[in-house]
């Protein structure tokens, strides 16, 4: 039986002004258009019904119907959650790890975690392989891993373990206090997500050094979750629209990210006087070592170990292909825009 118009209440974990909210809107718009208006999504910003970190519980209980979030926000329930976003890097990029979700067994492992291990009444889809998250905002250019030792730094999720393992003093601060705290020296550095979100946040007002490239969050994506009872009760075509809508939003999100992030990076450089550097190789190497230590500990857990093994096997094969085959994009860029890249 064809259902009448149904409106899903979807809340995100983002403030209304964040570009992530625009990306959630792209998903909502696609679902509505593809369903011929039978399925509408009423998209609300963080805090409208529940707080940003509470959306998963709220969807499981049916307090909201759906949510647009990331898994790092609920990894306190099980550390393995972070692997579906903020996880280790074995050579595959975010797009290739998203491919692991769809074709490498990631989807089943995610379902096992959410439904079997945690017993949550939730189904989830993924979208947007996020570009590598920058190492962040600093008072001066970072040239070595040693220079970062003892630095008071703010980040979230498993990334706190990594940075702490590198000898940084990782500090937890409420989101709204990051910029004032950096200005006042309570923290000396922080990372957020991308040039657009960071600049809307006001990072350039308090810091003029932006280090790009890092392994702390190099393969994150959005998690779109729907209450399972509600999902199971939908007609199969509407179920398909919710699921494949995430795949459609993927392309739209990526396009928006590339366009907007790159524009805002230029704006940061040209209008705000921010000095942009690439994180040196030695720092990235130290991050990998730190990941080793963190993984040695966490893979003691059976399920965590299983997911890591699966990602590792996937990366070994897929990244081998990708890296061996990939054109040298940097060479081409320097060919046409000589002297622009500073690394």
């Amino acid at each position, binding site marked *: 039986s064809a259902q009448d118009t149904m409106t899903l209440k979807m809340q995100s974990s983002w403030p209304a002004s964040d570009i992530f909210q625009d990306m959630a809107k792209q998903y909502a718009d696609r679902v509505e258009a593809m369903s011929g208006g039978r399925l509408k999504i009423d998209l609300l910003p963080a805090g409208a019904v529940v707080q940003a970190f509470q959306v998963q519980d709220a969807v499981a209980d049916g307090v909201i119907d759906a949510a647009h979030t990331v898994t790092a926000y609920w*990894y306190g329930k099980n550390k393995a959650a972070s692997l579906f976003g903020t996880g280790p890097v074995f050579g595959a990029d975010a797009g290739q790890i998203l491919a692991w979700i769809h074709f490498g067994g990631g989807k089943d492992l995610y379902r096992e975690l959410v439904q079997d291990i945690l017993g949550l009444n939730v189904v989830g889809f993924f979208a947007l392989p996020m570009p590598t998250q920058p190492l962040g905002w600093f008072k001066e250019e970072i040239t070595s891993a040693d220079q970062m030792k003892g630095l008071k730094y703010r980040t979230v999720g498993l990334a706190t*373990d990594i940075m*702490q393992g590198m000898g940084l003093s990782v500090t*937890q601060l409420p989101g709204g206090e990051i910029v004032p705290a950096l200005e006042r020296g309570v923290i000396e550095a922080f990372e957020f997500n991308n040039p657009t979100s960071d600049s809307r946040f006001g990072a350039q007002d308090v810091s003029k050094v932006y280090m790009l490239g890092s392994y702390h969050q190099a393969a994150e994506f959005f998690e779109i979750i729907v209450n399972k009872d509600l999902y199971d009760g939908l007609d199969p075509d509407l179920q398909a629209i919710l699921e494949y809508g995430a795949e459609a939003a993927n392309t739209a999100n990526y396009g928006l990210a590339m366009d907007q992030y790159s524009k805002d990076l230029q704006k940061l450089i040209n209008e705000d006087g921010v000095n942009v550097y690439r994180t040196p190789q030695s720092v990235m190497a130290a991050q990998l070592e730190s990941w080793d230590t963190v993984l040695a500990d966490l893979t003691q857990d059976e399920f965590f170990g299983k997911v890591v093994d699966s990602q590792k096997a996937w990366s070994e094969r897929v990244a081998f292909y990708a890296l061996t085959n990939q054109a040298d994009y940097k060479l081409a860029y320097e060919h046409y825009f000589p002297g622009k890249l500073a690394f």
Partner: protein
Amino acid sequence: MEAYIRFADKVSAWFGKAFAWSILVMTFGVGYEVFVRYVLRDPTSWAFDISYMMYGALFMMGGAYTLSRDGHVRGDVVYRLWRPRTQATVELVLYFLFFFPGILALIFSGWKYASRSIGYLEVSVMSPANVPIFQFKLIIVAAGILLFIQGIAQVFRCILCIRRGYWPQAESDVEELETQLIKQHEREILHHGGEAIDIVLPAHHTAGEFTGREEAADRPRGGGTGENR
């Protein structure tokens, strides 16, 4: 009934006061964090989690204690003009209509929420220190049970007031400074004779005048939350 009221007041006060001491844990815990962060440049990874847990436990477990001392703020512009019997009747109805349904939800849904968290031994996502938070979620249930016990006592207070025509005397306890001072002052005035008539008379005789006191026998309550103003 009076025995139950005394019992509930005692239970609420015991838990409220016991958890009140978490303010000292908080003060010195955060103080320690400030010291190690700014002086030794070596922040803890747990102080932030500890501070909000202490704060949350403190105010949640203090809810029933505050209720027993009539410390929750009221909008009493109209309420305080009523006779005690009218106040008690309205309040009695509202306890069943407004208070118990929500508190029961707090207990039962709170248990559902907390037990799920206990099931996966949830830890905080705010730090790498793996600070457990499932026990903190259990506070919701505990606070709900305390409020339920105290709510019954408040219902009995209403019934006694309807029967007798005046509010039963509250147990003596630590008071806000202004309340202490005012009470002291009142006693002095009483010693000095009858000129203080407008202060000691029940407030409905001097409607719209003084309201800053805890309940005394034979006068209506209201406006006397006197806290943090």
